[in-house]
């Protein structure tokens, strides 16, 4: 069967995206070829994101166009609370609950000996210094409820054992496979209000 080689390549690349199977890849490819204005918008967006979105040097969350993100730069965020999450996008989910004054720290993963994720592969080398320098009083661990997250939380609690901070945990997200992103702001707000102190 003949098919333009560039189209074939596009389909192969689309299939690398999460949740896109062969059939969806074809559908999207045909759509983009038909609607060139959408195609060009997407090309522009991709280039822009590629150029501008980086990771913040302080919290390891998303930053845009600079080394430091607006959350880390925001001096009004002085509640003394540092919220630890797994992925950069998790910051937005916690933020959607409409909190004020929190800062964040993105681990960039969860402990998993099976997958070869050792403690030194997480963004924790600077965590203790951050807590000291920025004078945090409370640490909120906001991870998905799964076994790797629980072990990671145990590790963090141990790591911060001797520091003068209150540590609490939020049980947000749905168990197993479900993502923190699936939760609505109200549910998150409720679980933040009822956060369980663990140290």
């Amino acid at each position, binding site marked *: 069967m003949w098919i333009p080689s560039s189209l074939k390549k596009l389909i192969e690349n689309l299939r690398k995206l999460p949740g896109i199977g062969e059939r969806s890849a074809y559908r999207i490819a045909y759509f983009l070829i038909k609607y060139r204005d959408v195609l060009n918008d997407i090309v522009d967006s991709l280039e822009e994101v590629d150029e501008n979105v980086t990771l913040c040097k302080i919290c390891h969350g998303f930053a845009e166009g600079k080394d430091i993100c607006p959350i880390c730069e925001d001096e009004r965020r002085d509640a003394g609370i540092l919220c630890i999450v797994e992925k950069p996008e998790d910051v937005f989910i916690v933020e959607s609950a409409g909190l004020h004054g929190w800062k964040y720290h993105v681990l960039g993963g969860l*402990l*998993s000996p*099976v997958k070869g994720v050792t403690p030194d592969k997480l963004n924790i080398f600077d965590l203790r210094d951050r807590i000291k320098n920025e004078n945090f009083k409370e640490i909120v661990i906001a991870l998905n409820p799964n076994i790797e997250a629980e*072990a*990671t939380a*145990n590790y963090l609690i*141990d790591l911060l054992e001797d520091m003068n901070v209150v540590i609490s945990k939020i049980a947000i997200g749905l*168990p197993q496979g479900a993502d923190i992103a699936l939760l609505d702001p109200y549910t998150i707000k409720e679980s933040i209000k009822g956060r369980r102190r663990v140290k």
Partner: protein
Amino acid sequence: MLKTLSLTFFRNFENRVFEFQGGLNIIIGKNGSGKTNLLESIAYLSFPRSFRGVLDSDLVMWGEDFFRIEGLYQDDVEHMIKCFYSSHNRVKKIHVNEKKVDRLSKLFFLFPTLVSTDRDQDIVDGPPEKRRSLFDKLISLVDMHYYRTLIDYRKAIENKNVLLKEKRLEEVKYWNREIEKLSTYIITKRTEFLKEITMTFDLKSGVLLNGKKADIRYFKKIDIEEGILDSKLEEELEFGFSIYGPHRDRFEFYIEGRPAKAAASEAEKRMMLLSLYFAFMERFEKDKDKKPVLILDEPLSILDDERIEALLGQLESQVFITTPRWSLQYEANLIEL
């Protein structure tokens, strides 16, 4: 109950329709006529994998490239369950009332079945893993949370084993803490389940074993308390993997106070397992409001007349039984292959 079944290119059935009744269905046929195949197709509608542990492609009639099983199951309303498998592109498609089923486990709760074959004897006297996984399966079927906990538990043990193997002792305790929490839950549920089924198990086994007393005992590898696993670290390190916890617990069958492995006859072993199934069915019904359909592959050949009477007298739900011959004056739907 399963009312009708239609098979296309399934094993030795090119194209055949069966009608069943609510109570006892007796499938009669010579050796190799397809009795077990028929049971296999019924069970497939409930749990779409061969209970004989073969690949889907082995279920396709030789020389063909797909099979289809269609069953009409009735509880309050009728459900048409359709399973289709193509060996050509290895796709399995399952529909209930023309709607695609995404999660295969959903089928079981729509059409629950229990299968007993002559391999049941191995469960009673084989290695402990077989009994443990049977109990884990039964408890999971009445308790979704138990199932999820088991998955988490297995993941945690896998991770811990990597740490033990690589001798990363510092990190083990973070997993041990979780393993202890999960263990406590698993042990509690196992104990509860055994307690819940004991009365029916005693009753059924009393009848099926002609008055002999059978029981099931649960042996914990270790009593869980906080920090106990950390204290076993050195020992586990020597083994190079985790040896303490409910993944090493044992369930054992006893007859007249002796281990069944040593003391029970073949028929007695099978009757003990059947008693467990009967007890489970009752427990399942209490929760889910329907009784699993019982599928028995040649249970009669090893039984004497009295035991056969006893067994048939215990049947309550819809039952499928295969046998090479049938001469009993029992009200049953006879299906000759």
